[in-house]
């Protein structure tokens, strides 16, 4: 049996709130009063979660059976679900940056759209975004060379630039369109773009697979043109139709194993 803790945002501020405490791991076993006391960062001050949200419901002892429901717009709340390992978060609105960053398990559903860096360096679990995702979905921390390495991200809408940057494992599915540099520096894992994708897809990738079902803007010249494949089977998934295989990015050296399949 899942129990819910419900968070209703009181006011939307221009200054963002950093609230990595919004995750089942933190809430589990706490009373509503204790949850209200959890620290959040507002500008350069430390405040309490209860100053920004009405908190109700009841928190389960076991985080696995706990769901956090955010009722409303939190487009200025960052780091929701950061590092979570289990349980569920449902956000009935838009979310700011770093949603589910370094997440290891559990599930996050966002009914609105998310800002950049969602699923950053994620290792496991699932993120489902009904709206759009901004840039660096499933990417690395700034300066780092290790992006998402496990779990799954599904975006019903469109995604921004550098999706799956430095990806090392896991799966990203974009049902809409995808902006430039999708799969940049990718090493392992699978990216499925059901809509069309902008230029420089797979730039500097050395491994992993990108499947494009829609249109693909001009491919980098450092990819080799491979054979045409009839009916694609990859990681236990099947894609009907004819696909052109491209291998690259040879700008990274002679032994690269990155693959882009473009449906013809």
């Amino acid at each position, binding site marked *: 049996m899942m129990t819910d803790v419900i968070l209703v945002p009181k006011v939307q501020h221009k200054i963002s709130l950093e609230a990595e405490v919004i995750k089942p791991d933190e809430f589990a076993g706490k009373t509503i009063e204790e949850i209200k006391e959890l620290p959040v960062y507002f500008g350069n001050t430390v405040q309490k979660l209860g100053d920004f949200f009405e908190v109700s419901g009841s928190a389960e002892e076991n985080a696995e059976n706990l769901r956090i429901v955010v009722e409303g717009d939190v487009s200025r709340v960052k780091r929701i679900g950061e590092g979570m390992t289990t349980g569920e978060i449902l956000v009935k609105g838009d979310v700011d940056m770093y949603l589910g960053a370094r997440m290891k398990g559990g599930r996050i559903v966002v009914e609105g759209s998310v800002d950049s860096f969602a699923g950053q360096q994620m290792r496991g679990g699932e993120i489902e975004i009904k709206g759009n995702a901004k840039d660096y979905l499933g990417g*690395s*921390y*700034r*300066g*780092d*060379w290790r992006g998402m390495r496990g779990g799954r991200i599904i975006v019903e809408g469109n995604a921004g630039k550098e999706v799956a940057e430095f990806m090392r494992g896991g799966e990203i599915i974009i049902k809409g369109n995808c902006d430039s540099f999708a799969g940049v520096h990718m090493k392992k894992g699978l990216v499925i773009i059901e809509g069309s994708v902008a230029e420089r897809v797979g730039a500097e990738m050395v491994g992993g697979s990108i499947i494009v079902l829609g249109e693909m803007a001009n491919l980098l010249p450092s990819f080799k043109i491979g054979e045409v494949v009839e009916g694609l089977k990859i990681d236990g998934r099947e894609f009907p139709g004819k696909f052109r295989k491209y291998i690259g990015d040879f700008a990274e050296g002679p032994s690269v194993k990155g693959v882009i399949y473009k449906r013809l």
Partner: protein
Amino acid sequence: MSELVLKNGIVYDPINNVNGEKMDILVKDGKIVEKLNGNAKTIDCSGKIVMPGGIEIHSHMAGGKVNGGRLFQPEDHVRFAMPKTKVTRSGTGFSTPTTFLTGYLYSKMGYTTGMTAAMPPLMARHTHEELKDIPMIDKGAYCLTDGNWFIMKYLKNGEIEKCAAYVSWLLKATKGYVVKITNPCGTEAWGWGKNCRSLDDPAPYFDITPRELVKGLVEVNEILKLPHSVHLHANNCGRLGNFVTTLETFKVPNGTKPAAKRQIMHATHIQFHSYGGDTWHNFESKADEIAKAVNSNKNIVIDTGTVTLDHTTTMTADGPLEYYLQSLTHLKWMNRNVEMETSPGITPFIYSRKMPTASIQWAIGLELSLLIKDPWQVLMTTDHPNAGPFIRYPRIIAWLMSRKYREETASKVHKVIYDRSTIDGIDREYSFYDIAIVTRAGEAKALGLSDRKGHLGVGADADIAVYDINPSEIDPSRDYKEIEKKFSSAAYTIKDGEILVKNGEIVQTRYGRTLWVNSKVDGELEKEVMKDIEYNFKRYYSVNLANYPVREEVLTRSTEVTRSASV
């Protein structure tokens, strides 16, 4: 100013041959004194260790490279953060901490003095601007002289006195404390896409060999009677089979007499210079060979550059080395040519426990400390941050004091260490007295600072560390975790007689001195060399001579150490 009594501490003060004696240390006006008159504040140190403040002899803590490392590694800064308190500023960075954080972290460990290991002369102004922002400790900077056009020309022409006068000017202009040589001639060769792979491999155009350059600078150093010896990062750093070059290098100063009671050469981060093998598959420790050479040569002091098995940053004036490292790791890197002077570089590095190489490197650092018999000759460093960040010093202390701890770590690294290093067979465990030598007393002596630092005798600076360790209750061999913990957070750090740290927390911030050498040479000789300097600045440098020297006002509590040369 205040008076202070540290009462009943268990004192380790190797310079004064005090080995764990219960005694009082008296402080007045920032100095250690024999007698106090009246109302001194008393600190009860019973059951606690009292040592002179720690001294860092080789750490990349300020300057262009360090800042480069900070700038291109946001991922390093997310790994370690310290929020501001009522007395301290906030700071971030695991292997490249911010300036303020650097001072705080040293101070928390009981350190009171630190030297930044590699300052390209052209970057001296930047370096001192950063040092100015490092609170808590006394500090100094090592002036790079490895690929310097003036020096190479003078030495090639046999003009040793002119070379000495130039170096004397350079130290004053850059407010440097030490003549530092990094990959002699190799950093100049790097400007031509080359390197110097042996002591007789000359720099292009200047046609001077590393052997000649090092020998020349050793002589210059002694002509100038500098407090420290030359501080050398030898050729072939980090390369397979480099122990041969290292052993050769140790012999280069032979025949030159030190001008002071100290070593003739300080060879730095020797862990990176003790490698055998000719492929990474037969890579092995040659620490035993190096130790043998140091044991039979009283004129050499080394520091270890102990690998701490961390994800860190490598940064050195040895540009070709950094290029080589990134060719192994394929990670991001930076290189720079500092015109007329040197070629530094930076790249991140992960010393993974699973990697045979990193595991052997870890073993080598400790082997050096344990196989070299005289602790005064083997000082403790991590070549911060190259082999690991300095915040790991307490862990190295614990490894040195406990065979059991070494065995425990050995069981977690690659098993190759049992075949290709001797670490498993070494029983030796350091005493607190040994630790006091390799972390403070030895540094003070090697740096020529032992008149005022590294000891607790009357007249010394009241730079004192107190650790909450009772040697009669704690057995370091068994309680190594406790040792690591206590050395991480000093019970008290006292700087110039002021309590800066209490129970591991900073209670007060202060600025330390900046030490530099005011080297004096004959006036006529200096005039002659000034003409060369003016001419060459006009001809080659992209900066005006007038904009080159560091103004004394930039230094915090500028403290000159005057030395008159024999020329």
